[in-house]
């Protein structure tokens, strides 16, 4: 058990990479607090963990709200007494060029993908500092390191996460480690929504992925394993880094 006795917050924990990570963290012994805007799916993840003998709770939270972030942290402390791991994972995508992106979509994507990390981390860090240790993992993307078509604000937001991660790592060492993951295309609901935004079917996305070295998209469970590494003591000398988990997508094409 790599997270025995630890307490973790997972945002965007109701689905996709967040859900897979919440379940994996719980299997590794952590008490997991799931924050999400989707109460039905979020509660189901918590219930699934508790049914399996683990410790979990769901707290309805919009991580773009400072008040919600504060409430999420207070609830976590009241219930479990500490916070060892923060997985800032909530994220959304809008597929558009600067010419067709709506201004409110720019603001929303930047708020969910970037500002939320600031809002929630500032509530969590004082607890980690007092405890003397903690690990923060932010979700960036392969598109935080390389550009992609019709995804300007998503790329901008995920690029921001990469540098926000490095800057936080500098500020909050040596007690707190801050890293991010950069997943490539992953088989989640968000990927399907993305296809819909472009008027394509998800099948074409999955087919595109065949060009990368490992010849397929990733599963949420495979991304969760990378998050577990960064959350656990196995990565005790790793901070400020961006861990690419993309089946070789950024390595190039053969």
């Amino acid at each position: 058990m790599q997270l025995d006795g630890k307490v973790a917050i997972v945002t965007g924990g109701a689905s996709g990479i967040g859900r897979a990570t919440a379940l994996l963290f719980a299997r590794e012994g952590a008490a997991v607090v799931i924050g999400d805007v989707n109460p039905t799916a979020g509660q189901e993840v918590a219930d699934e963990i508790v049914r399996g003998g683990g410790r979990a709770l769901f707290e309805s939270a919009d991580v773009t709200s400072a008040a919600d972030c504060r409430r999420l942290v207070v609830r976590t402390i009241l219930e479990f007494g500490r916070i060892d791991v923060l997985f800032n994972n909530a994220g959304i995508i809008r597929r558009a060029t600067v010419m067709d992106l709506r201004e409110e979509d720019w603001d929303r994507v930047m708020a969910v993908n970037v500002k939320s990390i600031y809002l929630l981390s500032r509530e969590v860090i004082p607890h980690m500092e007092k405890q003397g240790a903690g690990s923060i993992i932010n979700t960036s993307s392969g598109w935080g390191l390389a550009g992609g078509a019709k995804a300007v604000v998503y790329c901008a937001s995920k690029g921001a996460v990469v540098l926000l991660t490095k800057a936080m790592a500098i500020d909050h060492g040596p007690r707190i480690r801050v890293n991010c993951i950069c997943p490539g295309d992953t088989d989640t609901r968000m990927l399907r929504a993305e296809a819909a935004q472009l008027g394509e079917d998800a099948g074409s996305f999955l087919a595109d992925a065949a060009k990368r070295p490992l010849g397929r998209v990733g599963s949420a469970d495979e991304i969760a394993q990378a998050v577990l590494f960064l959350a656990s003591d196995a990565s005790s000398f790793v901070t400020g880094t961006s861990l690419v988990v993309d089946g070789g997508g950024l390595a190039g094409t053969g």
Partner: protein
Amino acid sequence: MRGLEAKRVLITGGASGIGAATAARFLDEGSVVCVLDCDPVALHRIKQELPDLAGILPADVSDLKQVQAAFAEAIRLMGGVDVLINNAGISIRHSFLDITPEEWDKVIAVNLTGVFYVAQTAARHMMERGSGVILQTASTNGIMGYPFYADYNATKAGVIELTKSMALELAPKVRVCAVAPGYVLTPMQRAEYTDAMLEEVNRKIPLRRHAQPEEIAALFAFLASDEAQYITGQVYTCDGGEIAGGLASR
């Protein structure tokens, strides 16, 4: 203590020190107890130590909205509030000449405005129901002058006068008293002392020691009980004789 069984008690600043000891005492008396505190870590800890608590309520008493929400939650959890221990308070050690406006505002906000917010919220509930007891934590620092805590001392003097005025207006339905502890050896206070400092302070106290938090809790239990039904508007000092003789006891 007569009359505390099944009484519904809300204790502010109840997650540590005097408040936590008071929570334990009322649970021992068979009361139903909720504690309110601004420190969620301490709330988590007291819930582990006192699993019989009816509820733990995170709130900052200097924020009226949070006070009202927490009080409503206490009523939801216990069905009402019969006894309020209005205890939350902070202090900052600083010389009078160095007190910043921010420090002054903070101490006033918690110790005086916060006490008022909680007292008024509870008093409205109790007056409507026709009975209740409100007990507030003052201090010997609200009776005598002490160096390095001018702002704190002013708030505690304020709590004493607030107590007396409330007692007059809320009688005969609601009794209101204050407890004025002297030196109390809470775990937090002990951590701030070296052994030598503790010994030096103890020498000034006629009973030659600090109070245990449980001894302050016992006074709260008495004043809340039916044994104290004819007592209102008074301040009860529990200080090992510290202020009995003024300078003579120093």
